[in-house]
């Protein structure tokens, strides 16, 4: 028998949750119950995992081997909640309540939720026969995937926030990690040990086993200027794949340039250092040592909390300043600043969290650092023009302009990879007028913040006490989110290609694309596409705030890319549109619907408005309110828009629409 056939295949441990628990327990310990005409269980490793993956008072069965013992722990680490969430007297909710896109209704019947009769002997036979043949994991997801995606991992109202699909995958990842990490105990012991002893041992391991939760950020020092320098993004993709290959059981979440990992406490990231060093990249990491019974995906929780409080402080500061007459603001600013940022209640709370955080740093519970390849203390000129981190030893001659650039070997090799994004090359040769650089950024800290708020809101609706305290976001919710985030990126790209045509769209990375446009008005179309897809996939974020940010830079095809990248790599508002040479738009995503409805169809009017702004912004603003101006009435929609979105946003929008 091969090794794969002997594995308990942790992905399948909860397959029993696809059967109505009215018939028998999901660990099949009381199978077939009152059901007749169903096949017998033919023991194999998969059945072992299914039957023995619990060790509780309620269950008769318990882990009887090291594998099922590890599975039992992995199952608990991968669960959506810490099982302290209980909504008394409420029926189970079998469909997943996605915090960012709740279902229209909660389904209390499993059969209705998954669309098959989950009590029928036929369905039960299907599942038992399937497991009896010791199937592969691929077969499992192929046949049952669609049901797993619908069915909540835990149907308890309030706990139904992740799918069985996510739970199955995450349990397998954590199982594989723990299998290599936990101290091996002989199977013989499990056979002779009493259930209570095993239960105690599980509790002890969960309480005493330390793991490291690490967030890494991959950085490249290169400043891409030529189209070929965009190959750094190709390298970034390769680096992420290589890390995944080296750490197959550790990576919990992958973003544009970030990764969330679970590692042994002695992990020193030497493999990562070797991988990134080959390309001259470097890595920042933040880590926190945790117990297995506190699996929170956030190594920087105190810093996240401080940032959130500072944002509230800033709003309070702006609110207080707005109350002061404009001519007195300058004098009052210092006092208000002190009152809010140094003496207020929030300032004290921030200081308390800071003190706690420093204490943790002192104790070595959390830490952060950077990993670089090689850093000589001195470099004799010339230094590489792109990364400025190594001695330039290569010459890059541009045939067309005759310009010579001095590069280091790493940057030279990245440029030498050839045109990885051929459409960009073509557009440049064809003399395209303008391109849009579009980047989607996911802020992990903001994601956890907003998910916590939405989760607390859901628990409050269910009447669960102390919702803020109980609304903990664990790995599984992030993994669940990841599926929808990928779907969102895919849909966004697909809609862009539909609108602009495949020849005019170049994907650089999943979250980063370039589009050739004919008119600045296409920026409005792009915002419209984003708004539609975002509303469809993440409607709840619009009610709060968005961890997903959109950056669009519109520039001439020959404009130095590093300028565009500088804007895109530091998005401070949820929606940022920078039109080089024209202006910027900075909005919250919740403002997009109304913003896109600004009625500015009259081109001549827009042209007059933008021409005035070229003489003076103030003059253009005053003209909008000048009752003597012959266009005063026709400026009504612009005046209203300025009130809502500010002059700069509306002016840039007018320039776009007047093109």
């Amino acid at each position, binding site marked *: 028998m091969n090794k794969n056939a002997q594995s308990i295949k942790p992905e399948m441990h909860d397959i029993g949750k696809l059967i109505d628990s009215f018939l028998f327990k999901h660990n099949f310990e009381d199978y077939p119950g009152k059901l007749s005409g169903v096949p017998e269980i033919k023991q194999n490793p998969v059945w072992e995992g299914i039957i023995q993956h619990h060790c509780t008072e309620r269950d008769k069965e318990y882990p009887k081997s090291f594998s099922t013992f590890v599975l039992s722990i992995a199952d608990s680490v991968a669960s959506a909640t810490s099982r302290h969430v209980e909504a008394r007297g409420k029926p189970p909710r079998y469909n997943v309540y996605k915090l960012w896109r709740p279902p229209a209704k909660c389904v209390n019947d499993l059969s209705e939720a998954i669309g098959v009769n989950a009590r029928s002997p036929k369905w039960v036979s299907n599942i038992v026969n399937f497991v009896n043949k010791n199937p592969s994991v691929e077969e499992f997801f192929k046949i049952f995937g669609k049901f797993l995606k619908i069915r909540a991992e835990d149907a308890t109202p309030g706990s139904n926030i992740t799918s069985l699909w996510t739970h199955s995958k995450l349990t397998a990842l954590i199982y594989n990690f723990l299998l290599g990490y936990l101290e091996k105990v002989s199977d013989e012991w499990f056979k002779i040990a009493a259930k209570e002893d095993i239960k105690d041992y599980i509790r002890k391991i969960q309480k005493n086993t330390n793991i490291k939760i690490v967030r890494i950020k991959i950085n490249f020092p290169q400043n891409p*200027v030529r189209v070929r320098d965009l190959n750094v993004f190709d390298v970034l993709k390769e680096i992420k794949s290589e890390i995944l290959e080296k750490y197959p059981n550790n990576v919990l979440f992958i973003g544009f340039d970030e990764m969330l990992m679970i590692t042994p406490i002695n992990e020193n990231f030497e493999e990562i250092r070797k991988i990134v060093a080959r390309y001259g990249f470097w890595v920042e990491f933040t880590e926190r040592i945790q117990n297995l019974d506190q699996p929170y995906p956030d190594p920087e929780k105190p*810093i996240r909390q401080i940032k959130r409080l500072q944002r509230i402080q800033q709003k309070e500061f702006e609110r207080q300043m707005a109350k002061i007459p404009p001519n007195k603001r300058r004098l009052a600013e210092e006092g208000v600043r002190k009152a809010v940022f140094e003496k207020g209640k929030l300032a004290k709370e921030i200081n308390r969290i800071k003190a706690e955080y420093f204490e943790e740093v002192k104790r*070595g519970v959390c830490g952060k*650092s950077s990993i670089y390849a090689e850093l000589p203390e001195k470099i004799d000129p010339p230094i590489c023009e792109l990364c*400025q981190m190594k001695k330039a030893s290569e010459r890059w001659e*541009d045939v067309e*302009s005759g*310009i010579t650039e001095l590069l280091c070997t790493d940057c030279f090799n990245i440029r030498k990879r050839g045109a990885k994004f051929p459409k960009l090359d073509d557009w440049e040769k064809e003399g395209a007028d303008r391109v849009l650089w579009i980047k989607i950024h996911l802020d992990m800290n903001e994601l956890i913040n907003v998910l916590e708020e939405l989760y607390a809101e859901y628990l409050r609706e269910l009447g669960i006490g102390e919702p803020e305290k109980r609304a903990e976001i664990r790995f599984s919710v992030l993994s669940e989110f990841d599926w929808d985030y990928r779907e969102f990126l895919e849909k966004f790209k697909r809609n862009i290609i539909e609108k602009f045509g495949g020849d005019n769209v170049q994907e650089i990375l999943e979250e980063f694309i370039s589009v050739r446009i004919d008119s600045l008005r296409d920026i409005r179309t792009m915002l419209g596409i984003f708004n539609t897809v975002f509303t469809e996939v993440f409607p709840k974020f619009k009610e709060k705030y968005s961890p997903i940010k959109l950056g669009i830079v519109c520039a001439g095809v020959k404009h*130095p890319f590093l*300028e565009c990248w500088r804007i895109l790599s530091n998005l401070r508002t949820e929606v940022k549109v920078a039109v080089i040479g024209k202006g910027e738009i900075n909005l919250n995503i919740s403002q997009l619907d109304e913003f896109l409805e600004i009625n500015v169809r009259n081109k001549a009017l827009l042209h007059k408005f933008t021409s005035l702004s070229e003489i003076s912004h103030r003059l253009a603003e005053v003209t909008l309110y000048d009752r003597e101006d012959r266009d005063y009435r026709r400026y009504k929609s612009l005046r209203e828009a300025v009130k809502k979105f500010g002059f700069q946003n509306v002016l840039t929008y007018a320039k776009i629409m007047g093109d």
Partner: protein
Amino acid sequence: MQKLWVIDMEYFHYELHSETLCIGERIKKGTFRPTIETIPYTQISGALKAYFGRQEVHAVGSIVEYESKDYFTYSPRNRITNVSKIPITTEYLINVRGNVYILKNKETEDFPDEIEIKLGAMRTKGFGYTILRKKGLVEVRNGQLDFGKLNTRIPIEHLDKFLIKPVKPQYGYLIKPLSLSKAVYVLSLFEGSEVYAPGFLIEKRW
């Protein structure tokens, strides 16, 4: 965890004003020179050393705000052949307000309350005229260091002069003149590095 620095230091605080400032990075693509948005140790210390003709001057700076960015395009001319090279577009900051901190020592303690210097690139084109006005003396006492993101660039060899202790460093290289015609790039800590340092070197928000 290593012990924090336990030294007392004093720095003169100057407020910086400049109408047009370009602290240029290296030229990109042969045609574009971006500006950075901080004041590195090497720039401000170099300018002060040149102005006062003294050696032991150690200063760092940061930019608090600027009105906008603009671009200046010019074509350097080869004086021998009298032929213009490819035009270079230089980015610069307009109406810059910032802070400069100078380590107090025997060579700097008599620095005047107002200093007019030329800072950064394109000084021959009229850029970089800068006024520094003394605001006071800042004392950093034992263990009084803040944690946060560094707001300046400083060579590793001078970290001790500003009590900077890196936690999550972001490295880069700054140029250090060795003589009138020779220079070397030295390993430096860049803005955005997470450090323990005196409060004035830390960005206000986490």
